[in-house]
């Protein structure tokens, strides 16, 4: 499946924004901690990613993620 970084970025930002933070705050360098995105939010993000890109992110994958950019890069690399 071919998916562009821009597509993933837009989907990730849209999903994270649905959890509370303003879309303008959600930059690649923003940390989940700054955005007040917790582990349950990340579980839900993983479900969206699984449904949309058939990429399965496990608990240990999620634990390593600190920033929005890291999440986007991981999803894009797995989707290729």
């Amino acid at each position: 499946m071919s998916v562009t970084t821009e597509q993933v970025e837009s989907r990730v930002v849209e999903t994270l924004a649905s959890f509370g933070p303003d879309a303008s705050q959600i930059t690649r360098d923003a940390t989940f901690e700054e955005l007040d995105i917790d582990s349950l939010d990340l579980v839900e993000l993983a479900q969206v990613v699984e449904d949309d890109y058939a990429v399965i992110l496990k608990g240990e994958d999620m634990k390593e993620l600190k920033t929005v950019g890291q999440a986007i890069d991981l999803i894009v690399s797995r989707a290729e």
Partner: protein
Amino acid sequence: MAERPEGCALVTGASRGIGAAIARSLASDGWPVVVNYRSDADGAAGVVADVEEAGGRAVALAADVAGPDAAEELFSGAESHFGVPVLALVNNAGIAADDLISLLGDEEWQRVLDTNLTGAFRLTRRALKSMMRARFGRIINISSIVGLRANPGQANYAAAKAGLIAMTKTVTVEVARRGITANAVAPGWIDTDMTAGVESALLSNVPARRAGTPDEVAACVSFLASDAAAYVNGAVLTVDGGLAA
């Protein structure tokens, strides 16, 4: 409060007894209902017929909840039949294999835990996927008074039912902020096939001096599944004629 999103209800072990009463009750509340059964296809068909006769919607789906694939089969089946996600899950399926703990075999221990607790865990895990996205969900675990008060000969059953209560509370604190509630109902002495033949002298310990009916348990489940119970979360509702009081 936001209106409840469209969804269906899944009741495990619903071909007879308490599960059948719950399926009929939720259907009369307007939920399309999946009547899960393991072996009693005729019983499940009868429940579906009752629901349809009353103007409701129901479908019977076979699966042994102790199996590792049951959750996916049931949820896929429910979603494809009704075209909406499962937003109310009632973990009711249960078996008993009683013996004094000194005589209780590994197989009896494991079989009861697999159905009564592990099955509920797998279904809950699967249910949360769609409930979290919907920002709405009702999980109702049918525990037992035995999960709160000891009953000789039921170490396996009691451990599973107490485990359900602990799991219920954990689900609550993990996902309540997504509009999901998880509660346990703990029936006492209820007239069903499972309690038929058990020494009724035990009834003298029940303050109400009578056994309960499956409909009396189902009424509590209907309440917990309703919008009126949106702020009831992590609770254990005993339905026991005062036995645990």
